[in-house]
């Protein structure tokens, strides 16, 4: 099935069943091992109650991005570098 249709269906079903956010998405730069996932879960207890989907995106260079619904905690190196770049070039 096309990916967009998939996500739209998921949204529709979750709306119709009146459920609040149930899944969390973790993006990492490489495939995370179980031990590493456990460390993350123990740091953020809320993740233990939600379904986790893990994605691999080498583009983030290092670190992880955790997204629950529309709330994001961005701990990736790519974003840090981008913010650093912005601060240096701000108002120059």
């Amino acid at each position, binding site marked *: 099935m096309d990916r967009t249709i998939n996500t739209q269906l998921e*949204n529709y079903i979750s*709306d119709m069943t009146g459920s609040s956010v149930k899944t969390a998405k973790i993006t990492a730069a490489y495939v995370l091992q179980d031990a590493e996932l456990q460390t993350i879960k123990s740091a953020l207890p809320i993740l233990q109650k939600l379904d986790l989907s893990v994605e691999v995106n080498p583009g983030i260079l290092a670190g992880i991005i955790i*997204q629950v619904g*529309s*709330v*994001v905690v*961005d701990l990736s190196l790519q974003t840090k570098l981008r913010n650093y770049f*912005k601060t*240096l070039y701000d108002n120059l």
Partner: protein
Amino acid sequence: MTISDNLMADISTKAALFDFNKVTIEDVGIVKKIQDGIVLLTGLDNVAYGDIVIFESGVEGYIIDLAQHEAGAIVLGDYLTIKSGDKVVSSGKTLSIPVDDRLIGRVVSPIGSPLDGKSRINSKIFYPLEKIAPGVVYRKSVSVPLQTGLKAIDALIPIGRGQRQLILGDRGTGKTTIAVDTIINQKGKDVICVYCAIGQKNSKVAALIELLRKQQSMDYTVVVSASASQPASLQYLAPYAATAIAEYFMDKGKDVLIVYDDLTKHAWAYREVSLILRRPAGREAYPGDVFYLHSRLLERSCRRDEKYGGGSITALPIIETLDGDVSGYIPTNIISITDGQIFLESDLFNSGIRPAINVGISVSRVGGNAQAKAMKQVAGRLKLDLAQYREISAFSQFESELDEATKTLLNRGSKITRLLKQNKNQPLSLGEQVVVIWAGTKGYLDNIPADGVEAFEGKLLQTLRLKAKKLVATINEKKILTEVEEKELEAIVKECL
């Protein structure tokens, strides 16, 4: 130090301030669709109306529409840099502008970015653009005059600090000139001026800033500009940003003068934004809340009681009418909101009466309460003479067939009308105005020819400035005209005849 040394020092300070270990929790969304400057976003579950969102390119957006699965934001800047699929972050802040004392003398955009090529205003204080106007309890009635320096206005349609006075007229009748002359006249009067240019030509704003600089008025003026080439969203927000800046100074107990030039273009910008948002169109395609657009803006201009901080904001909104039609939608809206209006007519302008104020239908609902006593003394007679003149001016063609009394009235009236003319960018102090009008109402002009009035006034002002500085200063200070002064004035006026 060389330029590159300065640059390196600047970058090093910024680099030192950056915190690598800072963790932020952000509310994130994705751009779904972009349509004429309105961006539709998904995600952003916790965003509220009026929040600021930041796009990947750094441009900000203002949430203006909330639907079940998407939010609509207007882009406060260049929307051509935004792509579908871009990430958007909620800033958690409602729309606000950084305010600081250093704003004085600056030219800024409605979101606070500098337009005069100087450094950014870095301030920790942010004032919200949308704010509820002070309630009834916090206000005090208007009783302190705001001198415009224009004889016709200060004598007949006086403006007080905290009043909203509308300037209404066709294009090219001198509306901006009146506002700018008022700003120039505030020199040394401890009034901060804010000039808000909405949808103006860049050349016009540049010329205006140059004029204010030359007259040393930028020392107490802030210019907020969203010119015609700026997106409609910025033109829509410009007057609110200017009012936020004015409120900052009012909160410090200052008196502020704010000029909105002009609200017609503001209504057009808002109509554009509303139509793009597919909101239902009403009369003349304006959205249903176009009255609220201006009423919530103008209600924020008030005089505040000292108990609650004092200070005042006097508003001079400008409206451009089409073909003298003051019964149009937007003009009637604003007439019902403001505390009076100044009508400028093209006929008067073209016949040489400048400022082209139609004194008969212009009104100030604050009136004499906001007039210095000296001015009240001379203006009462002036009003009467002019009113009688207007009644019978239609008969001025039959002058040879009229009785003496009518001829005197016509003569007096036409002399006074000429006396009220004034060159642009040459405001007069209270004392000078009182003396000139006093000379007119006492009848000293009755015997000089009609085209001699201007020369007489020029001579009178020159004499005052050279020989009678003390007298003028006394009138300016005491604000009253006693018999002693009147005798002195008589001598001076007779000298000039």
